[in-house]
């Protein structure tokens, strides 16, 4: 207890008395000096660093996406993500660095300094980040974060709980290797973990996709009958660190704010005491819970995934984009960077006189099952190139069109562990698949379909 008669002796965080006459250093709760400068004071100038943000004007999603004039810029994927967040009226963002995402969240910090994002801090690690995003989203504000590879897996417990809590946050995944030994290079195996969470998952081919999908993700995820998190994945480095052309609206406009009261669940009531740390008492198996409460809860999450289809069609022009499918000798189905490589492979095939159709998958959850059944009905050969070992996309394609197409489905080529995919590998699979000559370049390709060769199926099963 301090003696009220004695003057209080100020101490530093180590307990030593402060005797100097230096101005008091402000510290954060951890005792670190606060050095950040938001709002920034530049010399004697009174220029408000938040000036641009304050002048931003709210426009409708329809105007933002379809009518607003756009200007082309040559920027990296990380910069595209920053520009998307700038125009998305984001309230809250939490960062924890991991390659190749660090630059993205650093740039979101710049947006915070400029006032475009209302709250921002660095989390303890990804579990804390994803939990904080859950808190922010439950409280009713618009949340954004990004992570990659091992960070995705560290955060996956809270991430997997977002859909059940009906939290419409947007998370960007800049995919990289997760396996040991450590590597920071691209490999999109982490998407396979996200596909089964009940969240919406988009896969961006390039910087333009990243820009568009993030902004549209907020609007689609926040629709009342959806109210789900949206994961926007891209392949790290190829998209995040490389420059490409991105058509963007002016900086002076932004999306309408989140209207949390229009969500499928009530927001966390943190203002009326006692503050409720969880929205509800635990919903656990007991005599006052129906046996199927968790079952219908999951049904509801996936029903919401289904309901997002019409908004994906409305705002993104479809879950997949078919090109030259009619009359093609073979089809390539791909997402993300594999889609970019496939475009080149199709050009090389054309040089050899082979016409190949292309279906780019933009939305992995919901998956364009009906679309593929219709598009692949007459296909004879479908090649599914992927930047991972297991071929998660080929499995989804095969499951979707089983019984609706007699096509040979080649699950490959695959590259993984941080490799680029030479387009020649894709060409080999297409030509090999058409001529019957198996490519030696792709050991884990597989052939399924009507005339099943048991040996090849066994090979396929061993390799996926």
């Amino acid at each position, binding site marked *: 207890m301090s003696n009220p008669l004695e003057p209080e002796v100020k101490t530093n965080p180590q307990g030593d008395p402060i005797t100097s006459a230096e101005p008091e250093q402000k510290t954060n709760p951890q005792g670190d000096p606060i050095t950040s400068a938001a709002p920034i004071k530049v010399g004697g100038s009174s220029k408000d660093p938040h000036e641009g943000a304050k002048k931003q004007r709210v426009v409708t999603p329809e105007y933002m996406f379809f009518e607003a004039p756009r200007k082309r810029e040559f920027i990296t994927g990380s910069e595209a993500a920053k520009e998307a967040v700038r125009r998305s009226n984001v309230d809250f963002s939490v960062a924890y660095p991991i390659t190749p995402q660090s630059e993205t969240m650093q740039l979101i910090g710049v947006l915070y300094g400029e006032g475009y994002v209302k709250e921002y801090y660095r989390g303890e690690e990804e579990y804390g980040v994803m939990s904080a995003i859950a808190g922010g989203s439950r409280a009713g504000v618009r949340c954004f974060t990004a992570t990659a590879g091992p960070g995705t897996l560290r955060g996956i417990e809270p991430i997997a709980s977002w859909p059940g809590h009906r939290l419409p946050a947007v998370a960007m995944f800049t995919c990289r290797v997760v396996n040991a030994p450590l590597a920071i290079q691209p490999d999109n195996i982490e998407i396979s973990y996200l596909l089964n969470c009940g969240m919406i998952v988009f896969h961006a081919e390039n910087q333009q996709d990243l820009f568009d999908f993030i902004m549209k993700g907020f609007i689609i995820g926040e629709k009342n009958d959806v109210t789900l998190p949206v994961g926007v994945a891209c392949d790290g480095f190829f998209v995040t660190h*490389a420059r490409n052309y991105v058509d963007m609206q002016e900086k002076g406009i932004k999306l309408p704010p989140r209207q949390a009261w229009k969500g499928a669940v009530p927001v966390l009531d943190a203002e009326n005491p006692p503050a409720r740390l969880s929205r509800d008492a635990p919903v656990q198996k007991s005599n006052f819970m129906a046996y199927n409460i968790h079952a219908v809860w999951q049904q509801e999450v996936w029903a919401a995934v289904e309901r997002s289809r019409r908004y994906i069609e409305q705002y993104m022009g479809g879950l997949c984009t078919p090109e030259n499918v009619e009359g093609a000798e073979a089809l390539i189905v791909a997402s993300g*960077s594999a889609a970019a490589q496939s475009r080149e492979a199709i050009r090389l095939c054309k040089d050899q006189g082979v016409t190949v159709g292309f279906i780019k998958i933009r939305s992995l959850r919901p998956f364009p099952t009906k679309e593929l059944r219709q598009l692949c009905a007459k296909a004879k050969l479908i090649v599914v190139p992927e930047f991972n070992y297991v071929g998660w996309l080929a499995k989804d394609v095969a499951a979707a069109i089983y019984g609706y197409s007699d096509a040979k489905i080649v699950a490959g080529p695959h590259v993984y562990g941080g490799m680029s995919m*030479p387009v020649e590998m894709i060409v080999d699979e297409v030509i090999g698949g058409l001529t019957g000559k198996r490519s030696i370049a792709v050991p884990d390709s597989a052939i399924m379909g009507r005339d099943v060769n048991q040996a090849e199926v066994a090979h396929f099963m061993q390799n996926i």
Partner: protein
Amino acid sequence: MAKRFNIRMAGVGGQGVVTGSHILSTAVIRAGGESTIVPFYGSEKRMAPVESYVRVSDEPIYEIGEITFPHICIIFHPQVITHGKSYTMPFYFGLKQNGVLLINHDGPMKLPPQETNELKERNAKLYYIPATQLSLKVAGLDLATNMALMGAIGAITRLTTLEALGEAVKDRFLGKGFVVSGGTAALDSVVERKFKQKQELIEKNIAVIKAGWDYAEEHGWGAEERAEAKKADDLAAAEAASR
């Protein structure tokens, strides 16, 4: 048919492999083509392997990542060959049939018989250019080796012009918003100090590019391929006209 060249440049840290690729890529775009570059290196240090990949076309380029099967390989340093300082070995790994190898060396190198045979089977064109010597002679120092090589590849492929290469050099050293790594920034300041003035730096670099271009032209490199390509184009045009 689209004209397409995938160019793999291999050298060692400090030679300006990445800078060279930027200049070539910018020059191609300035000359009206399409181009992308992907640099690739580990922790920055002198004499460690560096690769940079330049894609060039007259159509949009979607492809990303490293180039595994190049049409053209440019070897900036003989150690790429003798010490295996590249990410793929041997140095011509994946070179396409009838591909081009442009090597910075004062004369033909003695390659192992097996490698010589493989290159023969691929009908590879081997061009040796004394790029470092040209840089020393024209600019007075070896740091413009990359410029000589870019000049030579420009002359061989005619993907760009001397003028556009010169403009690209100006962009690189005068342009705003060009982001370089810490190591490159340090080298830039060394180069700038040596040349006293930026103007001199740019002029000397452009002179080395021209020396490289002229060297390739004097030796008739690429003339045969250009003539064949022209013949094929003319034939296609005639066919199209007769139809």
